[in-house]
């Protein structure tokens, strides 16, 4: 029905999909991580540069996928600029859904949360090693 569609493909989501913010790659970066959703082939990489206070100075995302996964990545990158790395760990699933402003079933939820999964893996990876972790391709 029309309202279901209007809901999931809200103007703001389509806008982020068609005109993604912070799209691209940062090389070198302080945090760099890549992962995919093997169910649908969605793939997202996030690169982050930090300032001397460990705040996000610059962020970029790349990859391919559906409108939901790409829009959520675009929105997430806008959201985290200026934030402390440690604060990125606090971002929750609910925060992403609030950004998107839609309700999602279990299948599409994976699309929506892929960018958060990538961000957190990158952030926690940074904790383990002082070097920038290499982008990880987990698909075989």
């Amino acid at each position: 029905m029309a309202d279901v569609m209007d809901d999931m493909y809200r103007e703001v989501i389509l806008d982020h999909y068609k005109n993604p913010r912070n799209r691209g790659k940062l090389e070198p970066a302080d945090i760099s991580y890549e992962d995919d959703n093997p169910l649908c082939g969605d793939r997202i990489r996030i690169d982050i540069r930090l300032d001397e206070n460990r705040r996000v100075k610059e962020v970029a995302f790349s990859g391919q996928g559906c409108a939901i996964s790409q829009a959520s990545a675009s929105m997430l990158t806008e959201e985290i600029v200026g934030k402390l790395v440690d604060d990125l760990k606090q971002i929750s699933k609910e925060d992403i859904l609030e950004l998107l402003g839609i309700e999602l079933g279990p299948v599409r939820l994976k699309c929506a949360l892929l960018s958060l999964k990538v961000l957190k893996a990158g952030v926690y990876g940074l904790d383990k090693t002082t070097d920038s972790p290499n982008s990880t391709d987990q698909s075989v």
Partner: protein
Amino acid sequence: MTSNSAFDTARIRADFPILSREVRPGVPLVYLDSTATSQKPTAVIEAMDRYYRNSNANIHRGVHTLAEEATGLYEGARDRVAGFINASSRKEIIFTRNTTEAINLVANAWGRANIKAGDVIVLTEMEHHSNLVPWQMLAAEKGAIIEIIPVTDDGELDLSTFDAILRKSPKIVCCTQMSNVLGTINPIPEIAAKAHAAGALVLVDGAQSVPHFAVDVQTLGADFLAFSGHKMCGPTGIGVLWGREALLEAMPPFLGGGDMIRRVYLREFKAADLPNKFEAGTPAIAEGIGLGAAVDYLLNLGLDRIHQHEQAIIAYALERLEEVPGVKVFGPKAERKGGVAAFTLAGVHPHDIAQILDTDGVAVRAGHHCAMPLHDRFQIPASARASFYLYNTTDEVDKLINGLYKVKELFG
């Protein structure tokens, strides 16, 4: 409605209760995902319901009335399946969970006894993961070599490479009869004749062919045929491995346990005769009975008529899909394929296509359809797939096309 006037689609649709439901109030279901699983006719649902209400018992060794009835129903289903594919003997019909388990059975029981380091196993680029991974596992364990028959741009097997592959004396050639993505119907008798001349056995994945057109193992040329109940109007949880009796006789058992034995001692056992030898433990009894009812249902309609109906629908669907700007359909022309249309729409991810179509009740699949290497071959991460069966109509194709124009409008 349909162009096949001899085929009363309205009456057939009435046999499938689910087809009259609405996805949301006022939005009827347009089910275009039968390649993933088919819907079930009342006859199948009732056969299983009847079994549980009247005859439920464990099979084979019980002597009470219910056990006799249950055994008769389950073994009767085996006879129906044997007749359905024209097997020489009911001993050649092994019930499994599904196509995947049937292929795993061959890869394990036959493969482990017959494949050694350096042996060649032939697969194709259009296989479902179920006909790739079991062989990859076997090859990794044994140090065997995998050779691949590639796929052409038109979505057919490139058999120009086959002779060179066969000169490597492969032990087995594993090939789908019909691609679950491209819809391509492969020339199995020709492939099997060449493979046999080179000394190789042939395993055919019949998951997409057996439900849709008549498959006769006497003329197919294969040595093993695997298929699933749930794609042919039957329930999930029941599948079939057909194999030549002499091959099955010579193979060691796969799973061990109850029902697959003739005699058990504390330190050894003697395996049961075919087909029980490969059916360890209590099987999916109700599901087997449901499959038997599905076979009756399909035979009553006639596989040739079902195929003819699907040919008409896919020809119409391809014609309409091609008129939508930005749509690219993968696979051969209608006359060389079954009722499957995998496609992409420029600028829109297949997930979004499927999601938006769902708002109109149109159920299509989006993803790699368990054929990642095939999607790599066409350099796409995913595709949308509409697939058709005996109950689909040209009206439903029109709803698909209208939905695609809506997608374009939204993403334009």
